């Protein structure tokens, strides 16, 4: 289905014009132009989005430069804007969420792709996809009213009893905290890790499994020593994809993180994230405050774009390897 432009080369100008008018009359060219317009609209929207973030954030971007990223005072009265506590909160919640979600997600993906009978695997994958469709505000609701009481009454006291000597589990726990936000985030990203990793494992060529089994390895040995290493970069890609989602997640985090800018080693204290800061303070923002918040959005955008790009590259590498 190549476009009409390709016939232009080597044809006399008169003939080119005539065939173009012919295509216009039959409607082919009009249809192509409409499709082209819609496709161009996407480029315009994306460029406008990036341009807008860049220009609206100009006042604080020019005033503070890169110091915006590593100073930690955000005071609208004195006109100081430092993003460090928010970047810290976003990074820590996302990383702790990955620590929980990766073993869980990859384990489940291995089960679904390699070990479960096909019918059971399809049914369970369907449920996992439904879990991925649950809106984030619902996760926030569950986080506030169900997870917080459970953490407060049983999970955190027992964690403190066992790991209390670690700096991560010191200080008092009031329910909303970086730890709570991490757990909610981990539940939200698990379905993405499972479904992408499962696809990656299913893309591993059949002969590899059969060869491993023929050499006398058990089902688990062929899975763990042959199939998983083959799909490794794709699985890492799925983890990056999940990380990008966790970084940009707003509502569920805003509802359970405590919304207090802190940079402390303990996970049990309240924190703040970039997305939560924007959601809470955008209300009637004007002037320099608006510029600072938009610059936070720009930082978030840059982070997710880099991580998404890396994820896509890793996934393409794996699928290309499988079809070679």
């Amino acid at each position: 289905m190549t476009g009409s432009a390709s016939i232009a080369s080597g044809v006399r100008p008169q003939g080119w014009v005539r065939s173009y008018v012919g295509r216009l009359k039959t409607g082919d060219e009009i249809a192509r132009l409409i499709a082209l317009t819609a496709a161009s609209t996407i480029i315009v929207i994306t460029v406008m989005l990036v341009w807008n973030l860049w220009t609206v954030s100009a006042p604080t971007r020019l005033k503070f430069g890169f110091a915006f990223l590593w100073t930690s005072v955000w005071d609208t009265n004195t006109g100081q804007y430092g993003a460090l506590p928010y970047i810290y909160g976003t990074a820590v919640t996302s990383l702790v969420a990955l620590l929980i979600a990766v073993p869980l997600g990859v384990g489940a993906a291995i089960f679904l792709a390699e070990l479960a009978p096909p019918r059971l695997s399809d049914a369970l994958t369907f449920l996992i996809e439904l879990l991925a469709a649950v809106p984030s505000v619902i996760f926030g609701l569950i986080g506030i009213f169900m997870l917080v009481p459970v953490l407060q009454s049983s999970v955190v006291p027992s964690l403190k009893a066992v790991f209390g000597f670690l700096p991560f589990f010191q200080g008092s726990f009031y329910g909303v905290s970086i730890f709570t936000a991490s757990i909610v985030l981990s539940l939200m990203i698990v379905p993405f890790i499972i479904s992408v990793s499962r696809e990656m494992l299913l893309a591993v060529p059949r002969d590899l499994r059969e060869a491993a089994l023929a050499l006398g390895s058990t089902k688990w040995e062929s899975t763990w020593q042959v199939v998983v290493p083959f799909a490794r970069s794709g699985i890492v890609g799925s983890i990056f994809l999940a990380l990008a989602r966790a970084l940009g997640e707003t509502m569920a985090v805003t509802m359970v993180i405590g919304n207090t800018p802190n940079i402390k080693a303990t996970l049990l204290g309240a924190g703040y994230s970039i997305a939560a800061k924007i959601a809470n303070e955008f209300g009637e923002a004007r002037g320099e405050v608006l510029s600072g918040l938009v610059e936070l959005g720009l930082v978030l955008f840059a982070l997710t774009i880099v991580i998404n790009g890396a994820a896509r590259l890793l996934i393409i590498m794996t699928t290309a390897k499988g079809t070679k």
Partner: protein
Amino acid sequence: MLFLTGVCTVIAVSVLFVILGYLFAKGGSSLSLQFFTNLPAPTGETGGGMANAILGSGQVLLLATCIGVPIGFIAGVYLSEYSGAAFASIVRFMTDLLNGVPSIVVGVVAYTLVVLKTGTGPLAGGIALGIMMIPIAVRSTEAFLRAVPTSLREGAMALGANQWKTIGTVVIPAAMRGILSGMMLNLARVAGETAPLLLTAGLSMYWNHGWTQPVATLPVMIYTDAVGPQEDLHRQAWAAGFVLLSLVLLVNVIARTIISRGVHKPR
């Protein structure tokens, strides 16, 4: 080890059932006919409903569909039927870029571009969600059109149809079921989006008065009621959460069943 991976799966799936069960128990008991017909109760009074938020969500989603679906669909047709040029790969790259933008950032951009000129309301909210719908609409349309066998296109052309008639009367109808289900999934995804609406749609306790006046929407109401102080607000949040989740999951189940019927993946 086999056992352990099974345990991982059980944990992940049980999260869905815990959420469903909890919302069903809490939300189902808070739900009443009032919820669908009344305005929110004034502060201090109990009862009331979210009729304005249900209408507001509908209004915002309608505008989002009118923006996201046509642009995404036609651009998807372009990528599948007219591609081959370098331009198509630029469009694909931009689509992926747009798909990766966090929803709150879309809200920020819609705020600076629309809200600063018109104020909060369904117009700004619909534009924000419409932009979010575009990338998925493009990719699902392209995927389903590409799945149509080339022989169908060749058959239509051999019978004398020109390119756009081939696309319009043969290729698109053949892929229609998949494309429609893809659009349903897309709509269900943005229906639960809260962060962009928080910045663009605003909040209101009354019936909506137009496209540029603040409007209540279900996800934003869930958020504000859940973080609010009174027990009665929490009950409203549960009821609204129950309604929203039921709708989103229902659409998902229907659309996924339509897609998977008749399609057998080789394993």
